[in-house]
Each structure stands twice: as C-alpha cells, then as structure tokens.
C-alpha cells in the first residue's frame, strides 16, 4: 500500500468498514463514524501527546549521533535507541550504527548532557540514559532541541503539531498514536450527541522500527499506561448494556487488554506496565472492535489486528484497500474493525 506522504486535513479520510463476524467489508468515510456506531457504544482513545523524541547529540569521541527517546523510565531517566550520523531522510535500516558506547559514557546536547547508565547487550544501541537536568529545565530543553521521530516515507520534516491528536494531554508517546490523528472535535462531539460515550487511557506508545533486527524483533517493548477511574466505569456500563467498546488504535488495545490480563480479566484504575503481545489466538477481554490505520506487513500492529479478524478476511480487505487507493502509515486512511451484531 502507498504511504500517505504527510499530514492531511482532519476528518477527510476514507474509512474501510470491516465486520469480522459477518465476514464483510465496505467503503465508507470517517465522517460516517457516528452512524456506524450506536448509542451505548464506548469509544476509548489514547490521550498521550507525542514527545519530541529525536535529539541530536555528540558522542564522547566527537561522532554525531541521533538519540530517539522510547519512553521515560523515571525522573530524568529515559530508554532510548541511538543512531549514527544522519536523520530521518535515511531509511532506519540503512542508517550508520552509532559508536559503541557503555555505561558512564556521556552524550552532549545543546545545553544538556545524557549519561548512559545501562545497555541492552544483545543490541547495544538500546540504552538507558540519565539527563543532567529534570523537571522544568529538562522538559523545556527537550521541547527546544527535539523533533518528532519520523521515517523516510514522509516527504517533509514534521512539526510537533503534526503529530498531536486533538485531545493530546501528557507527552508519553514516542510516536503519534496515529489512529486518533484524523479525529476532529466536530466528529467527537457528534459521537457524544449520538449517545456514544468517550473515554481515554494514556499509553506510552513506543517506536515502530529501529532498523536493528534484534531490537525490532523484540518490539513492542514493555510500555507504561494509566487507566483513570473515569474510564473503568464507562467500560463496565457499556459491557453491562451490551454496548461495544471500540479502541482507537492498537495502543488502546494494549493498555486495556494488558490491564485486564494482569487483573484476572478485570479493568483496574491506575498505572501499570504491559508486555502483552496481542496476536492471532488472543481472546480480547475488554475490546470489541477498533478504529485503526493500515499497517505494514510483518508489523506488530498488523499481528494485533489478526486477533480481531480472521487472517484470510484481513488479507482480502487489505487487497481491496490497496486496489482502491487507500493510503497507509500514520497519516493514512482509517479501518474500523467492528462486528455489527
């Protein structure tokens, strides 16, 4: 499928409606969403804002490196992947490796330093860093120096505003929780008027690719999430009233199902970390359907969809979408996977 080359106006996108139980799919528009859902359904979004996680730095030997922040591991501490010289214009798998670095090595940024304190030895580009600042000083510096993590399929550099949803809150996501990117408030308030409830989780979505096969095979890494009490109640209400719980994006599936898997199938309000990998054969406990994009073959996102859609049906739907010119990747079209009955 052709990748969408960059951000497009919201709520213009096409939507493929895929009913896994009926074994059917049909073309629709994202703007039809309120009529595709029913009063009593619940839409759950990921309200994580996207971190400006690509940071230029200089290694102790003077080599230029790119730090890509994967997630916050504590105050002033981050898990990160290092790349050699260059930037997003080069495909990740063709990027030169960074110099070999170990605990105690310090990377210099403009007005900031980051010291490596642990290394993941199967692939030493995956590190944990400690910045020499925290609080307001660190966050101001990250927003001053950082750019959104992005890939070579896009035509131009992204602004931070390009990678935020209209409900973005805390900056926890390494990459845009992209399923929610095309949603406008016109559409979301339209859902509420229709009697569809809205709720949020915050999930620290990680990166989709590092270019290092050892790390990429391990994706998604454990990711932290927070489920507020204000979301646990409507999930219970929707299920009791036979409403459907629709996750906006694979990160929401991971947060809700990861939380349920850790608590005997029940949702519990609070923070957690999940290493749940949703794949064919997984039986969702909370989520009935999802609004998502079109994902690349072999990605963990596509594997997750196979827990909701029989693989032959998913393949047929993707062939149709490709023939009809649907766009893939983070600024592409939408796919609603939901059984009508």
């Amino acid at each position, binding site marked *: 499928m052709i990748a969408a080359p960059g951000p497009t106006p919201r709520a213009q996108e096409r939507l493929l409606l895929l009913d896994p139980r009926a074994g059917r799919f049909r073309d629709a528009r994202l703007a039809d969403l309120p009529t595709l859902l029913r009063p009593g359904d619940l839409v759950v*979004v990921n*309200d994580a804002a996207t*971190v400006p996680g690509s940071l230029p730095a200089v290694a102790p030997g003077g080599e230029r490196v790119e730090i890509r922040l994967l997630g916050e591991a504590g105050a002033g501490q981050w898990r990160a992947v290092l790349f050699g010289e260059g930037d997003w214009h080069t495909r990740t798998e063709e990027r030169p490796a960074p110099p070999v670095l170990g605990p105690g090595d310090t990377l210099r940024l403009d007005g900031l330093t980051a010291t490596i304190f642990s290394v993941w030895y199967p692939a030493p580009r995956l590190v944990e860093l400690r910045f020499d600042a925290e609080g*307001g000083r660190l966050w101001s510096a990250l*927003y001053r120096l950082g750019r959104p993590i992005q890939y070579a399929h896009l035509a131009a550099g992204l602004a931070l505003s390009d990678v935020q949803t209209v409900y*973005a*809150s*805390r900056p926890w996501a390494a990459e845009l929780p992209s399923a929610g990117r095309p949603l406008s408030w016109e559409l979301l308030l339209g859902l509420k008027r229709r009697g569809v409830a*809205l*709720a949020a989780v915050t999930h620290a979505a990680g990166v989709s690719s590092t270019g290092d096969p050892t790390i990429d095979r391990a994706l998604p890494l454990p990711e932290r999430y927070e489920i507020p009490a204000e979301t646990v109640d409507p999930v219970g209400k929707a299920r009791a009233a036979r409403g459907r719980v629709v996750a906006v994006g694979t990160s929401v599936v991971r947060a809700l199902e990861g939380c349920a898997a850790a608590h005997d199938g029940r949702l519990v309000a609070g923070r957690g970390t999940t290493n749940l990998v949703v794949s064919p054969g997984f039986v969702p406990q909370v989520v009935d359907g999802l609004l998502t994009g079109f994902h690349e073959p072999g990605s963990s996102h596509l594997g997750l969809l196979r827990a909701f859609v029989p693989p032959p049906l998913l393949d047929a739907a993707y062939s149709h979408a490709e023939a009809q010119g649907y766009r893939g990747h983070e600024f592409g079209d939408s796919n609603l996977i939901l059984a009508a009955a």
Partner: protein
Amino acid sequence: MRIPGASALVTGGSRGLGAALGRVLAREGARVALVARGAAELEAAAAAIRAGGGEAHALAGDIGDPRAAAALAGAASALVGPIDLLVHGASTLGPVPLRLLLDTDPTQLERTLAVNVVGPFRLTQAVAGGMVLRGRGLVVHVTSDASVVAYPRWGAYGVSKAAFDHLARIWGAELDGTGVRFLSVDPGEMDTQMHADAVPEADPATLADPAVVAEQIVGLIRESEPLTSGARLEVAAMVAAS
C-alpha cells in the same frame, strides 16, 4: 472547582498578578506550572513557591511564538499532570508610551494581537481537548476594562482585550455541556509593572495590591461552578465591597 491537587498552568507567572495567582494556587494545594518570557525571574518565582512548601515549575516561553503552545502544554502536563486550570495572565500593552491609533505601527497591532489573542487561543486549543475528554476544566482569561471602554491611546491593547473577551464567550458556547468552562476576569487597576508602563504618573497608593486581587480571583475559581461559562466578571467591584 476543587483546587487542592488540581493541575494549573499560569502564563505571565513571573511578576504581577500572574505570579500572585501562582503563589495563591500553590498555597491552596494546586500543582502549578508557570510560564513567562524571562527565565531568571520566572525561576525565582517558582523557587519562592517551592521554598514555601508548594509545587511550582518554571517553563520559559513566549506566548506570542506560534510554536510555543504545543511545547508549553506538553511540558506543563508532563510536570503537573493533565491540566485542570489554565490561567491566561500574560499580555502585552503594545507600544509604550501608549499612542493614538493614527500613530500606531500596524505591525505593533499585529504583535499585540499575537500575544494577547492568538497565542492564548493556541494554548487553550492545546489544553482544552484533553479537558473535554476528561469532562472537566476551567480556562480563565485575565482581561481589562479597556476591553469595554474606548480609552484614547489604548487602541492596540483595548482591541486585543475585546477580542479576548469574545473568544472566551465563543469557547464557552461551543463547549457548553462538556464540563469545560471559561471565564474572563477584569482585575481592575493594580500596582504592577504593566500599570507603571501604561500610566507612569499614577499614584501606587490608589492601585490595588495584586496579591489581594489574586486571592479574590482564586476565590472565584473555587466557586466558579454556578457562573455562566464565557462570562466577564469584574474583581475591582468585589475588592471594593469586601
């Protein structure tokens, strides 16, 4: 709204009314992120709050910079949590000494609108979506009587504040029923650097203490539920009556 434990973002937080609001909110138990252009003065304001046992973070930034909103909203919510209260205290008088419209450079009017209207609009937009999802939130516009009275020589500022008042009304109308509310608050004439820049000949003894006005505004925030969203309120009348 309930202030203890609330997450607050206050612009114009390094001096005058903004700094006083930050102090009172933190004293009442809010987690406060302060924004202003001058990093040193802002850090001192935040440090003073922390020394008093409150929680405050300094985020230097220029509200008039189009790139500032996403960064300030993101950094603030990383530090204090999803924002419950946004106070737009930052503003610029425009060209000083204040001058007639015939003598005002149009680019100065543009800059005044950028800081007093467009910048706050961007910041509200970056924060209010999350508030609507959570079903609660309050946005306070600090305004001026120059928004309703056509004072000669206050053209750039007065026009920007009139637009700012109307912005709060339209936000209020559009988000009616979502739990996210808007208020414009006119603090009256206060003994601040801004007032001295505008009216250098004024006698400070005739002006209100921003610390006193801040207490009134925080009282209003606490009891804001019954107020019409988007309404414009005058604090001067409350201070005089109390």
